[in-house]
């Protein structure tokens, strides 16, 4: 595996939505990152559809039909449907196979009939469980995950992704206690190790079936921090610490790419701008059109350098404007249309900058993902590219520096809680050992005791 030790982009200003250094082609005439932004729609199966394979297959088919129908009715040139599988689908790879088949069939039909460019991203669930299944890297549950990935690829999914959960128990502990060391260990070390283990297995399966290995996300860790951080008046997690966790998440999500994932990286990876700056793969992101799923403080900024624009997820039901696959595809589709107009008219970079500046100083989490700052964090990562621990640590420290500079120049304002937690986190991070082994040993000792679910054996440690 080749680690990134230099940036694929040479200048942050080269980063622009719809354009990736290494675009991909997924069939049905569809390319991603090749000059235009494509909307992505994701709808959660309704309650009760988990009860049988038949119900789930029909649910998946209905979601696909609704989305496709609206797409042609409003004239979208292209769209991607993502299906995030629930545990029943992954637990039963035959469910995965049939659902995927049904969805691909509908998409192909619309492609044939209307010429619309389209494809399916299948995202099997990571059903491994640190608590229950001692074999995190080889066990029944692990096997089921791998079989479901194969079932997705085999049955026509254009792109396969997964949200791996390695290190989650330790990072959860760290996030809820404001412990930067635990967060770094959970994300930078355990998370990266697990992602490597998984993607070394996933990529060959995808290659075999001519499917694009789409990549991963640090959802299980940095997004947990982001959700706890919540809005301005929430009080569960400091927004500065969350920003540092996000920076670490980039070092982790990069691993999938190092193992051969080609993008578009998963929409919920808010760290994707950093990973794109480093690696040049296309990314999917979400923001202001994912309000159905959650609230963030960077809803415009996340569009700045994206290649696919997603709604994250929504209940499958009816709005006055239609069913949710229709309504939310229209929402992401219209925003993608705006970006594509900007590209066509040569004003892409202006719109990119407007998106960015709308949110840049709204919150520390937004600040560090502004494309110039994302690039800087990317540089900190590749400078330490060979060592997952050191690069995650460097990313966090750089993020801290970015925040401090913005505060110094009176563009960013922090609350006392944000200020204090940033200061103390940076103090801790800077003092940490510079040898990965030492850090790991230290953490194993400390967190095996404090975090009941954490078992070093799961990571062959």
């Amino acid at each position: 595996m080749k680690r990134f030790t230099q940036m694929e982009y040479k200048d942050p200003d080269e980063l622009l939505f719809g354009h990736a250094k290494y675009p991909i082609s997924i069939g049905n005439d569809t390319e991603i990152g090749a000059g235009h932004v494509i909307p992505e729609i994701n709808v959660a199966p309704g309650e009760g559809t988990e009860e049988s394979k038949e119900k789930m297959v029909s649910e998946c088919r209905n979601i696909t039909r609704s989305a496709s129908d609206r797409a042609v009715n409003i004239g979208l040139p292209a769209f991607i449907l993502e299906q995030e599988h629930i545990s029943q689908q992954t637990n039963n790879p035959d469910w995965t196979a049939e659902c995927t088949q049904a969805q691909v069939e509908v998409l192909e039909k619309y492609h044939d009939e209307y010429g619309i460019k389209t494809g399916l991203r299948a995202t099997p669930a990571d059903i491994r469980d640190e608590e229950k299944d001692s074999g995190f890297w080889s066990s029944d549950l692990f096997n089921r995950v791998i079989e479901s990935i194969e079932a997705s690829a085999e049955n026509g999914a254009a792109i396969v992704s997964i949200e791996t959960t390695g290190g989650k128990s330790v990072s959860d502990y760290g996030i809820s206690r404001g412990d930067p060391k635990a967060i770094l260990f959970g994300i930078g070390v355990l998370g990266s190790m697990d992602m490597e283990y998984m993607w070394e297995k996933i990529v060959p399966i995808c290659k075999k079936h001519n499917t694009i290995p789409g990549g991963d996300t640090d959802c299980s860790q940095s997004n947990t921090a982001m959700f706890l951080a919540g809005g301005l008046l929430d009080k569960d997690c400091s927004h500065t610490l969350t920003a540092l966790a996000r920076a670490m998440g980039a070092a982790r999500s990069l691993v999938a790419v190092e193992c051969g994932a080609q993008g578009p990286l998963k929409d919920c990876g808010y760290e994707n701008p950093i990973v794109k700056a480093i690696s040049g793969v296309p990314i999917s992101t979400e923001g202001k059109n994912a309000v159905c799923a959650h609230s963030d403080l960077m809803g415009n900024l996340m569009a700045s350098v994206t290649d696919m624009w997603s709604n994250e997820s929504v209940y499958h039901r009816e709005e006055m404007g239609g069913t949710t696959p229709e309504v939310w595809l229209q929402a992401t589709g219209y925003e993608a249309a705006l970006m594509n107009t900007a590209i066509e008219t040569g004003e892409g970079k202006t719109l990119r900058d407007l998106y960015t500046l709308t949110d840049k100083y709204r919150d520390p989490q937004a600040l560090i993902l502004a494309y110039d700052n994302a690039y800087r964090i990317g540089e900190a990562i590749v400078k330490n590219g060979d060592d997952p621990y050191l690069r995650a640590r460097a990313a966090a420290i750089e993020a801290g520096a970015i925040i401090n500079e913005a505060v110094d120049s009176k563009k960013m304002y922090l609350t006392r809680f944000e200020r204090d937690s940033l200061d103390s986190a940076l103090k801790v991070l800077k003092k940490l050992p510079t040898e990965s082994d030492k850090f790991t040993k230290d953490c194993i000792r400390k967190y095996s005791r404090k975090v009941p679910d954490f078992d070093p054996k799961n990571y062959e440690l």
Partner: protein
Amino acid sequence: MSYKDLEDKIDQRNVYLRYNVELEGPAIKPEEDEEVAKILPNDEPFRSIALTILNENRDEAITIVKKALDDGISPLDIINEGLMKGMDAVSLLYTKGIYFLPDLMLSGDAMMESVKECEAVLGHKSDSKATVVSFVAEGDPHDIGKNLILMFLRAGGYEAIDMGRDVPASDVVEAVKKYHPIFLTGTALMTTTMTAFPKVVKALEDADLEVPAIGCGGGAVRKDFVESFPMSVYGVEAYHTPKLADAILNDKKDWKDLRKEYSDVVGGFVSEYS
């Protein structure tokens, strides 16, 4: 850069497509459509009569129909072999996306007025397939959906009773008593008026009345809401109404069947969720 300059740079096809334009087949005369050809009668004067309907030509329709009546042609034959065939062809073309609503409305107007001429000779109303009652929920002023439904029902050969808008549940009960409809259609456009539907059902039940199905539809109405009470089926498009009525009339379907088989019955894509 100026607006005009920006405009000239865009390749529209990278932003949006007009699939309606993209997909349009070559222009053909309506009567040349293969399926229409099968429906249209070959014998005169029925063919000419059907064609005036197909061509949405009210004045011409009335003229030819009057002449045929003068010639002693049976008014019932004119209706069934001429006017209705024309209307069937119109409905078909609408379903195929070749005709549009105004075509349907104008053909419908032509047909209805021609039928009246025949009935004048006949001395009584001609037979309809069956009776359907249509209303807009109490408190709701939005009535266009209901008006379309009336038109589709009449074009489909049904006697359609128009109860107007803002109709109290008790009036619906009275109408059911009076007309014994095989199907009721209710339209509500608002969250706070669709609650009238379960009230209608309750009032019918209290009066020991039953209809095979009540089609409930309209802007803000949701399928999950409609399926939360009995006797009802969620209605999606106005042109589905005669197809639902046909299923009740010919195949003895009731609301339970229609819920399950909706998209088969109406023969088209219907966005579904559970």
